[in-house]
Structures are given as structure tokens and as C-alpha cells.
């Protein structure tokens, strides 16, 4: 290929122009939220100013020192982390079963698993509410307003996604490797531990990350199936929108705080996210 220096420079400049524009589009909404979170109530009104003139951190200190917020934060961390771990383990087992065993109606089971993610949430809240308050009742204890309730419930939308993602990954691992390990005397757990898990690691990582993010971000179920003890941070966020007037500054501050853990994860795990998201749709 004979491309002159001039052409190469032009092309590079075009690429950067494109990406800088893209970055602005991506970041301006988030930037605006940051600006709002750094302003007092009075400063918000009037001519919108995208520049930040001074740091007003009261919104953050108000949110961070609020004991309810701290509880929400802990709940969110516990719920999404446990859910992600649970989903990774269960999805790996389920995917392995679907991929390696001749189960009757395998394809239909797989599709049925996915349909669990499709249910419009509003109407399903009612049966879930009844289930959480009455069906699972041991003495005075119910699933309602517990972390374990949310952890299990979030599997309904995270497991289908995880299984779908992992199915392609596990299908892509040659079955001969399993056989070889078995001939060497490995049992089922040995195969899973020494063959499947290492080879499916990028896929597993993405599964865990996305499950974590989905659980962290979930709002509707958390809002309706918890009251005090197990409230999560997204629910707390929505509590700022009240009939008496929304406290936009604190709402924005809290949204910024909610964003941080997810952002950290993206930055740290960026490489795996791309590697693992093929859904096995492409095979060499």
C-alpha cells in the first residue's frame, strides 16, 4: 500500500475529529449532571451555564452523611455482588449442561430461559409482591424487604442473559478437551475447574460484570419489594423526586455517586468486555 504521509495525517485527523465529537456527545449529559450536582438550589435557575464557576459540595456532603444513603449503598453492594456471583455459578453449570448433555427439549428450554427476561415488569409486581409477603413466610419472617429476596429475584433477568452469553463461549470450547481431561481421571468438577473455567474466563468475567451492573441499576422491583431494610441506591435516587419539589442538586450528586462503581468496573475490565461479548455467534 502506498499512502502518502499527507493522506495518513488527514485520515488520523478525521479519526480524531470523529471521536472527539463522539466523546462530547457522550460526556455532555454526564457533565451537565456533574455541574448540577455542584450547584445550590438558587444557582440552578436562570440562564443555563455549562461551565463550572465554583465548587459547591454541600449536595455531596448532605448525601454522603445521610445514614439512609449509607444503608442503601451497603444494600446495593451486597445485593449486586451476591447476585453476580450466584448468576456466574448457576449460569456456568446450566450452560455446561445445555452445551454438553443431550437433554430432551434442549433448544426449547434455552428459549424458555430467555423469555424470562421479556416479562413487562409492572403486572408481574403483583404476584411477586404476594409471593414476597405471604407465600414465603416462616413465622414472622418474609422475603419482603430482604436482601436475599432481591438477590434471588434478580436472577430472573440476569440468568437468561448470562446463559445466553456463556452458551456461545462454552459451545466454542472443543468437547475433546473435556474428554481428554476425563481420560486423565478428572471428574465433572475437575473438568469444570481445569478446562471450562480457564477457557471461558473472559466470558465469565463479562457475565459477572454485566450481571453486577444490571443488578446495581435495577429500580422497579427494588422500589416495590423493599421498604426500609433492603432499599437499594437506585430507589433512594428516585426518592428525591417528590411532589413537594425535587431537590435536583442532591439527586444529581447521588446519581454521580451511583455512577462511580460502574465506571471503575468499565475502565478496569474494558478488555474482557469486548472479548466476551460475542455471544458465540462467531466461530472461527
Amino acid at each position: 500500500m502506498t499512502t502518502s504521509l499527507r493522506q495518513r495525517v488527514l485520515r488520523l485527523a478525521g479519526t480524531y475529529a470523529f471521536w472527539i465529537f463522539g466523546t462530547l456527545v457522550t460526556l455532555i449529559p454526564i457533565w451537565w449532571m456533574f455541574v448540577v450536582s455542584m450547584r445550590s438550589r438558587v444557582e440552578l435557575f436562570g440562564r443555563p451555564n455549562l461551565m463550572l464557576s465554583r465548587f459547591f459540595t454541600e449536595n455531596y456532603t448532605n448525601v454522603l452523611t445521610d445514614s439512609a444513603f449509607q444503608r442503601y449503598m451497603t444494600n446495593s453492594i451486597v445485593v449486586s455482588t451476591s447476585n453476580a456471583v450466584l448468576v456466574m455459578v448457576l449460569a456456568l453449570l446450566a450452560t455446561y449442561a445445555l452445551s454438553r448433555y443431550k437433554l430432551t427439549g434442549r433448544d426449547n428450554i434455552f428459549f424458555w430461559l430467555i423469555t424470562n427476561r421479556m416479562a413487562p415488569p409492572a403486572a408481574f409486581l403483583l404476584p411477586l409482591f404476594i409471593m414476597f409477603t405471604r407465600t414465603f413466610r416462616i413465622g414472622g419472617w418474609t422475603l419482603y424487604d430482604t436482601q436475599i429476596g432481591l438477590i434471588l429475584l434478580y436472577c430472573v433477568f440476569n440468568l437468561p442473559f448470562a446463559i445466553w452469553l456463556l452458551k456461545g463461549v462454552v459451545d466454542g470450547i472443543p468437547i475433546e478437551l473435556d474428554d481428554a481431561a476425563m481420560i486423565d481421571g478428572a471428574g465433572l468438577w475437575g473438568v469444570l475447574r481445569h478446562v471450562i473455567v480457564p477457557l471461558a474466563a473472559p466470558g465469565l468475567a463479562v457475565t459477572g460484570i454485566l450481571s453486577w451492573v444490571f443488578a446495581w441499576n435495577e429500580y422497579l422491583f427494588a422500589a416495590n419489594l423493599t421498604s426500609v431494610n433492603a432499599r437499594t441506591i437506585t430507589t433512594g435516587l428516585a426518592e428525591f423526586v417528590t411532589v413537594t419539589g425535587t431537590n435536583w442538586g442532591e439527586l444529581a450528586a447521588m446519581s454521580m455517586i451511583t455512577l462511580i462503581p460502574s465506571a471503575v468496573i468499565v475502565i478496569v475490565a474494558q478488555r474482557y468486555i469486548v472479548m466476551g461479548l460475542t455471544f458465540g455467534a462467531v466461530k472461527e
Partner: protein
Amino acid sequence: MRNSRTGWLLLSPTLIILLIFGFAPFLYVLFVGFNQWNVFSAEDGLIFNGLDNFRRLVFDADFLHSVGLTARFAIFAIGSEVVLGFVLAQMLTRNFPGKSLFRIIHTLPLMVAPIAVGAIWRLLVIPGFGPVPFFLDRWFDLQYQIGTYPDQALWTSVIMDVWHWTPFVTLTMLAGLTAIPKEPVEQAKVDGASRFQVFWYVTLPFLRPVLLTTVFIRIMDAIRTVDEVWMLAGGGPGTRFTGIYIWRVVFPRTDYGYGSSISIITLYLTIVLCWLLFIAISGRRKGETE
């Protein structure tokens, strides 16, 4: 060596959880869908009324309107996401300094909670201090108020969804593009194919399964969107999508029977749509391996 009982055993925890928290509520909703049940009505409790709810929804202008809106929302949002996502992924297959930084920034919206996405966009468009209405008015003399103009509310929802979900499409496309073997592309170039021909006859067929899977996932999630649009517009005109309509029927109106029947129909439509895509994906894959 591979005993199918072991297979079922491995699958069972997943099946149990999904049967309890997914399938049981589904059966309940299905059952309630065939009953009249409104807490505020004169008769108390559930009254079996056969297909009445379903007959009612066929003539329910509000419901049909919500289906139309959802369809428009899904088509425009997913369409733009796929095109944009593909272009961005294509740009990311090139190497240039600072690429990973741009990629990280581009991935950020995907990780923001839907409810926070709604909050962010509401802050942008809210009359009074949002910059969007202010600058549109000032520069283009355009009246922008999502509470008043249904079309603007719909388009704002679409743009918000595109902002939120394009990164997901970009990432799956990027994964798909990097997995395409180099040889066919090189071969086509050697044979004198134009860039468009390479894209149309080589890249696209390879990308098809990824593309369909991505569209499948986006359709599934777009149809049940509630949180972000609710936070953005509070269920105002132009954003009464099916998910939000169900919400309004079930909660403020406590019309459980009718709400359940709408849910069943919506779920049914989603499943049919996705089933067709699923066949397209897996049929293709079978064709390749056999």
C-alpha cells in the same frame, strides 16, 4: 460417560429459581388476566370473565396507541443504535493512539442506571434550567417542551435510549468484527471488490448472527423499558409506552385483571417477535455446522 441425569442436575438450580420467580408469577398473571379484578369496583375479589379483558383491549384506543408508540420508539431507537454502533465499531477496529481511552468513554453510558439516565436527561430538558430548551429557543427559535409536545417527548426518549444503549451495540459489533477471519476480506479486495461490496458480501454475512442477537436483546429490553422514560417524562404524553401503560392500569387504577391481560398480550407479542429472530439466528448456525 455423559449421563443426562447429571445434566438435569446441573440445570436444576437455574430451573428452580426461574420456575419460582419467573414462571409462577407468569401463571398467576395469566390466571388473573381472565378475571375481572379491580379493588375499587363494586364487586370484591376476582370474578372470572373469560376473554372479556382481551376483547376490551382490542378496542382500547389508549392501549393501541401505546403499542404504536412502543413500536415507533423501538424501531427508531434500535435502528439508529445498530447503524451508529456498527460505524463506531468499524472505527474501533483501526489502530490509533488513544483508542482505548475513547472506547472507555464511549462505554460509560451503558453502565449508568436507567433511573439515573432518566434523571440526567430530565436535567437536560427540564424547562427552567435545562440547557436543551434554552439553547434550542435561543439559537433556532424552537419551542421545546416535552411535557407539552408528545412528538418531542417521543424523540427525546429515542435519543436518550440511543445515548444509553449504542455502546452495547458497539461492543457486540466490535466483538463480532474482530472475530471475522482476515482472509475472505483480503481475497475480496484482491479480486477488486469495492468497499461497499466487501461490506455487503463479506462482512455483513459474517456479522449477521451477532447483529441478530444484538437486535434480539435490544428488542427484548426496549419493549419493557419503564424506569428511564418514567423518570424523564413522568408518563407524560408521547411516552406512554406499553410498559408504562400497564403500570398506569395496574397501580393508580388498580385494574389488576385488565393490566394482567395486557401484560400477557405484550409478553406474547415480544416472544413471537423474538422467536422469529431466534429461528433466524439458530437456523443460520445449524446451516453452517452441518
